[in-house]
């Protein structure tokens, strides 16, 4: 689930946002309509993206709210929502380096597209979703499957294996084909949690259920069997021990 933080005072817009975001992909973790509440939510809530209306009434509080996000310990992507298309409105908004603007009224597609763009931009991987690439963002990655955006935290991954020229990621949420090499994905994953056990496998150490060194085999928590090559065994055990 992708956690969304809303900064919006217009009930109609809130309703439309709620209606537009697919229930199985997005979860609105917090809605605020003033800076005080908003700042608190930034600190307390865990969110992946914020949708910010620039104007609270007549005041451009959205810009301050965006600055608050930028200045927090964990910066997050955010989208500005506005009904205006005039430049001067964005003069101040621009300084916050927003990841995208969404012009009201918007349809479901536009909203989702904006979110995608914002995530791509945040990860500096523009166009990644269109190319069916995975976008890594903080401690998770996003991937588009069947026109829906799926967020996968690293903890959800069992292992990654090679599938022809791409990678296949086996997670709790399902399997995903990634159009990148295994070596590439290893670089994006945190090295203390993931280890290469075989030429074709990268394994989440947390997901290891049992080890059969003699058989050169690992049994993971989803009962999948993963090869543990002899060449990489020593490396695996050092990390695994430390991990343990």
């Amino acid at each position: 689930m992708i956690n969304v933080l809303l900064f919006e005072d217009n009930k109609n817009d809130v309703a439309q946002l709620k209606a537009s975001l697919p229930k199985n992909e997005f979860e609105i973790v917090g809605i605020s309509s003033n800076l005080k509440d908003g700042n608190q939510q930034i600190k307390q809530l865990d969110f992946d993206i914020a949708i910010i209306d620039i104007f609270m009434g007549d005041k451009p509080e959205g810009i301050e709210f965006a600055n608050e996000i930028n200045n927090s310990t964990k910066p997050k992507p955010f989208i500005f929502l506005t009904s205006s298309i005039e430049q001067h409105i964005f003069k101040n908004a621009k300084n916050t380096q927003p990841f995208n603007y969404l012009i009201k009224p918007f349809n479901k597609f536009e909203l989702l597209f904006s979110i995608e763009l914002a995530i791509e931009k945040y990860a500096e991987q523009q166009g990644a979703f269109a190319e069916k690439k995975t976008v890594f963002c903080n401690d998770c990655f996003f991937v588009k499957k069947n026109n829906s955006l799926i967020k996968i935290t690293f903890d959800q991954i069992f292992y990654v294996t090679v599938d022809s020229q791409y990678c296949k990621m086996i997670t709790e949420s399902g399997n995903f084909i990634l159009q990148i090499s295994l070596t590439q994905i290893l670089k994006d994953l945190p090295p203390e949690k993931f280890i290469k056990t075989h030429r074709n496998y990268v394994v989440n150490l947390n997901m290891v259920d049992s080890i059969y060194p003699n058989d050169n085999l690992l049994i993971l928590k989803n009962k999948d069997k993963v090869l543990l090559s002899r060449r990489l065994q020593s490396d695996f055990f050092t990390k695994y021990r430390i991990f343990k």
Partner: protein
Amino acid sequence: MPLITYNNFFFLSGLRFVLILSILVNTRFSIAQNQDLVSDLFKNELEKVCLVCKNPNKEIHSNIFMEFHKAHDFFSKSEIDSSYIYATKLLENKSFKKKDINFILYVLKGRVLTEKALYNAAEGILQEAIIIGEDINNVYTTNLYAILGRIHVEQKEFNKAVKILENWKKSYNNENTENSRINVHNLGVSYLHLQNFNKAEINLKESFNFNEEAKDTLGLARSCLDLANLYYVQYKDAIALRYFEKGLAFAEKTTNLPLLQNAYLNLAIVEENNKNYGKSLNYRKGFEKIKDSIWNKDQVWKLAEKDKEITLAVKDKEIKTLELSSELQKERLQTAQLRNIIYSSIAIFFLIIIILSVFTNFKIRKKNRIISIQKDELVELVETNDRLFSIITHDLKSPIGLLKNKLMRAIEMLKPVSIDKEEATQLILDSFQLSKRTHLLIDNTLHWVIGNKQELLFSKEKLPVESIINMVHFDYIFQLEEKEIKFKNEVDSSFFVEADLNSLKIIFRNILDNAIKFSHPKSEMLVSSNCDESTCTIHWKDQGIGFDQNTENEDSHKVNQTNKDVSGNIGTGLGLRLCKVLAKKNEGSFEIKSIKGKGTTVSVTLNKYKIA
């Protein structure tokens, strides 16, 4: 009137005989000129005969009369030479037969000669005159005797003089005139020279008496002195001395210095002869003194004359220089005037130019001010207009958008459509479409206005065309479904363009909206793309009614272009115009190809995204 001065006796030795000789030798006639040459008598005679003088105004007189007049006129003006020439000419030509005129001419000629001291010639002429005068019994003839007498005295032909004067004396009738006094005196002097002392005494005494009678001091002095000389020659010294002293006393009263001088000299000689040297010396001194004073007077006169001449010359010169300088000044004045005129005309010219330029400048400035004011007003008006538009469209956009969304949700909620709700669903669908179209119109207007204000939010980025087409398509799902139009998006999902998201959406939305409007139900719509190295072109192909290419080209430049859609609704051309503007702004192009009855293809060319 000529005067006769008197014999001066210079006694250079003590001998009376010698004295007499000296009288003869030194007796001198000098004819002093009286300013008035013409006596009243002579004037009367002239007026009698001169026609010009009688009628001075008539100018019809013949030449000879004019010349006659000139002759006597010149004479009276003392221009005796001219007078003589005229008189001689007239006499020689025998111009006049009248004796009285000829008489006058002879008189004039004679008198002129007398004045010139040409006594021999004068005598002849005057005698001729006397003959004529006697003949015509002219009164003036007697005067001629006197003149002739004086001439004879002058010529020392005392016998002739006595003869003439005695002849005159017969006719003078004891009239006591200056003329007669002089004539009597001259007669006396002539007798004295002829040593006829008795007759001399009688005549001189007569002259003395006349003079006494007429209280003529000068005449008395002369008479006394001549009487004294008479007595002195006769050795009647006592009487002579008395007369000498008497003459001196008279002479001292007159201003005639030579006379006084003679008186002194005579007395000095007489007293010297009387051995009375003291008195003689005193008289001598008197004589010398007068001599000096006469000389001084002459000198002074000469000097004065010279001075006069000099001053006259100086004055002349001054006048000439003054005239010259005045002429010069005149010229200078003229040139100055000319210069002034030129300068002033130049000044006026410049002044006019300045005034004109100031005036035109003022006018231009006034115009400029008006123009700038009007411009400001216009700008303000346009701004107000734009602001009003943007406010209205902004304010309209949100509620219409909301209405549209609500209607859409209502349609979603009504699905699947049951038969009893079909009509209501259709109504809602129509309302939705209406709101959607209105919304697009408002959005277009808003973009148009803000685009004109150069304030449109615009930032180019990497965009996946396929996704954007899907986004736009999503809004039109219901319309497409309603018309049962098949929509195919065949754009390669992996290609990106560099463009502004918002403007690209507007372009696609307008194209799609337009395409649906002009498409026949159950037709197909295809979106495809082809790319070269630097650009990508997106083709929107429909199977609509199409239109005539020519009219499109013309009408695309008109904002108020109208086209009827398949259901007869009229659309504005604003959408298409906006598309062109926005495509250009994205550094792309916008083209329409249409065949009437077959369909339209809209092509949007954009820059391909370049990997930095």
